[in-house]
Every structure is written in C-alpha cells, then in structure tokens.
C-alpha cells in the first residue's frame, strides 16, 4: 500500500499544509483527521455547547483552508495558527450574538439553556463537573478561552499568548484569576474535588501495584 499511496501520518502539520497548498487532497485528509476533533470540541466549548454550530464552524474553518491555503504561513506553527483562526471566528460570533441579543428576545433564553438548564448528561456525570461547566460558561470570553486552551487543549502559555494575540503575562494572569474565581464559586465542592483527586491517585497506585 505504501508503494501506491504516500503516507502522511509521520509528516508534521506544517509539511502537510505545504502539500495542501500544492493541491494534495491526501494531505488535506490527514490534516482534517488530526484537527477536526479538537476544532469541533473547541467550538463546542466556546460557542455555548451548541453541537450544530460547532460543526458548522469546524466545517467553515476547513473550507477556509481549502479555498485559501495560502493564508497559512508555513514558518508559523500550524497549531497556533488554526487555533487563532478559530478564536477569531468565535470573536465574530460573539459580536453577532451581541447584535442578535439586542434585537431578539429568544437569544437570551437560548444562552440560558446552554448555560444552566440543559447540561450534557453524557459529559457531565457528577455534580462537580456540571457546576464547573456552568461556571466556565459564566466566565468572560477571554478568561474562558484561556482556561480551556490551557487545561483542555494543554497548550503552553506561549502558544496561548500567540493564539489570543496577547502577552504571556496576560495569559498567566487570566489563568490565575480564573482559578481563584472558580475556587471561590466551587468551594462547596472542594471536598468532592479532593475525593476525585484522591480516588484517581488510588486508582493509579492500584494499577501500579497490579
């Protein structure tokens, strides 16, 4: 199969994008396989946990890659580039949401639904997780983005600063502020969090012993 089809699994994202710019659909397929899921979940988190909207935005970002691959600068890390594009798309959606908020009465209800009344039972299996999700939705967009990029997507402070087009100090400050605020709002769940932590440690210990 290797003789017939070129394998892109070992290639870096940057090299794949060079091939995509040349018109290689296999390279594009590989890029999609790598980044469709993170993008979908990022949009899902950032856009009020609306799956349809998240899928639309995910499709839109890859359509941009198809039509204007030259927008990507191969000297830049693809990861930070695609997150920054996603971040800008979210910003635009927030602005549109603000406009809709002023003209439509139903928008607020929609947001409320996502914020609190319809937690995703499939993802939130305990109260702490539900509350954490709620609290994250109540955070400002910048703090939320920073927190999600840091703790969900495991990006470095430097990458987050590049994606959000801000300084690393600002990113650190936002993370600290978010942790402090969430800690205060979720202090009644502190023992639960501790239990979770202890439970995880015990599980890991048991696995190590076995």
């Amino acid at each position, binding site marked *: 199969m290797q003789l017939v089809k070129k394998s892109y699994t070992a290639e870096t994202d940057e090299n794949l994008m060079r091939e995509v710019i040349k018109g290689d659909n296999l390279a594009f397929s590989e890029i*999609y396989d790598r980044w469709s899921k993170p993008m979908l*979940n990022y949009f899902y988190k950032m856009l009020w946990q609306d799956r349809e909207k998240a899928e639309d935005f995910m499709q839109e970002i890859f*359509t941009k890659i198809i039509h204007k691959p030259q927008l990507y600068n191969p000297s830049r890390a693809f990861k930070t580039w695609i997150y920054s594009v996603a971040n800008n798309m979210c910003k635009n959606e927030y602005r549109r949401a603000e406009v809709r908020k002023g003209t439509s009465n139903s928008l607020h209800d929609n947001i409320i639904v996502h914020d609190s009344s319809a937690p995703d039972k499939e993802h939130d299996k305990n109260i702490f997780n539900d509350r954490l999700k709620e609290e994250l939705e109540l955070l400002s967009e910048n703090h939320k983005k920073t927190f999600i990029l840091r703790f969900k997507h495991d990006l470095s402070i430097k990458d987050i600063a590049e994606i959000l087009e801000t300084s*690393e100090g600002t990113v650190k400050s936002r993370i600290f502020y978010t942790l402090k605020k969430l800690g205060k709002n979720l202090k009644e769940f*502190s023992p639960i969090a501790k239990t979770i932590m202890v439970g995880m440690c015990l599980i890991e210990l048991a696995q190590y012993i076995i």
Partner: protein
Amino acid sequence: MMEDRNITKMDVEFYLLNREYNELSSDELAIVNEHVESEQEFNEMKAVVMGAGNFFKEEKELAPNPAIKVALLKEFDKQQPARAYWLNGIFVSLFPKEKRLFQKPGMQLIGLAASVLLIVTIAFNGNTDINNSTLAQNNGFKTEEEAVEERGKLGREEFAEEKNLQENDLEPTTEVLEKELEVATLNEVEIEEKSETVENKGTTIDFMYDAQPIESVEADLSIAADVDYRRNDNNLNASEESFKKGVLKDKEKVAISDDKLVISATTPATTEVVEEFSMSDDEGYFSDDVSAGAIVTGNNSIDLPVNSRSLAEDSDLIGILYTAM
C-alpha cells in the same frame, strides 16, 4: 515587577498541581502566600485545577460527522479541476473546433513560430563571410584575359626555345620541358572547357582525383584507352625521342585543372604547324591542339594514334606532374 509576578503565578499553578499546602517549603510558601490568602483558598484552587483536569480528561469528546469530511474532500477536489478547466480553456481558445485548421489561432501561432525558426536558422547558418576558413577558395583563379595572355606568352617562349634548339641542334633542357608541360596544362584546361564541342572526345582520359580514389579511377579508364596506351607505348617513346631531337611528333600532356588531373595524348604535330598557328593566332593554335586524337581539316576527320598512360603505371609521369604543379 509585573514579569516577576507572572512568573510567581506560574509557580503557584505549578505548586497547585504538584504540592500540598503543608508540603510547601518556606520559600515556596512565601511565593504562594503572596498571591493566595489562605490555605483554604489554596485548596479551593487546587481542587479546581485537579477537578478541571479530570473533567476535561473524562469529558467525552465530540466526534465530527463523517459526512462533513466527505463534503470537504469534494470541495477540495473541486479546486483541482478548476486548474484543469483553466488549461482546457486555453486549449479550446487556441484550437476552436468551429474554425478551419489554418484559421485556428494555435495553428497560426505554430506557423509563425516555425517561420521565425526558419528565418533564424537561415540567418545564422547562412555563411556569407568570404574569409571564412571553412569555405573552399580558388585563389589561383585567373581571368580569361590573363589566361589568354599567359598562354600566348608561354607559347611564344616555347616556340623560341624550340627554334633555338632546332638551330643549335641541342637537347631540350629541363626548363624547356617544364614550359612545355605548362603549355600543355593550359591547353588541357581549354580542352575541358570545350570538351563538349570536340568531336572525338574518347581519347581524353580524365582522372577525378577528388571524386574517387586512384584505384577506381584506373578502373574507370576505358580499357580501349589502356590498350591504346600499350599499343602506342612504342610510339610514345619514339615521340619522346623525336621531341628531344626537336621534332614534335607526339605531344603528351599532363594537365591539372581545379579538381582534375588530365593526362592526354594529342595528335602528332609538326613544329611547322605549331609555328603557323602560334604565329598567326593563339586561339587557333590552341583550338587545333584541343582536338586530341583527331585533326579536323575542313570536313575530313583523321584519326590519329593516342598514347596515354596512368600514373600508377609510370612513376616518371608523377615526377613530371609535380614539376608541372
């Protein structure tokens, strides 16, 4: 100051993830206490960090709809045919089906390119430089007037020498023989030019040195001429003998034109005849001399013996040839 504060914040995050509050050293505690008010707050923040990490790990990630990938790949493929259509568009515009072959712009362009190529090829390959070393040059070319004048001069000198020899009864010197050969050479050139008008051409044997090797030239020689040579060999010797005595009975000529070596034997002629023609008219002299093998007297043609030899058969002839050259 701000930079330091940020670093310590990072450190706090590190401690939240990796240390218990009571495990912190005094230095670490000092850093933590700069930003965290109490142990309780530290634990709350720690619970959030640990819980968030766990939450995001446990959270079931959404999987994209496979139909999206199919749609995107189709969209991607649409981009590639666009290039093919672009090329196809050029081809269609250059070779429209509705037009005749020579009316198609593509064909016209091809014709134009071919014309330019042809012109360029001719212009750059046409060698008009006369001084080009690759060109064959005939530096020894003489005009007709010069040739006639030279022939006349040589003829007169020859005649004077012969007369002198006759008077003194002396053998001709090498110089005289050379001059004789020169005259013969010039005569042979004349023969070549007028060979078509000569009645009996069979007795003149031409060697095409440049055109073919000597072996093939020999083969080309008519057998009859060869036989004649052998048959008249004695006559030739006799004519040489008589020549030495001042009586020119048989005249043998070795002539070199631009690309031909011509060896021929002419009819025996007496000195008196030569004298008559050379004195009266150079042209007449040489035109009569041209009729090798035959003397045309009015309407009567008289065949005369012809002596001819090939170079391969007579090494002396080669020596004479070089002398003539």
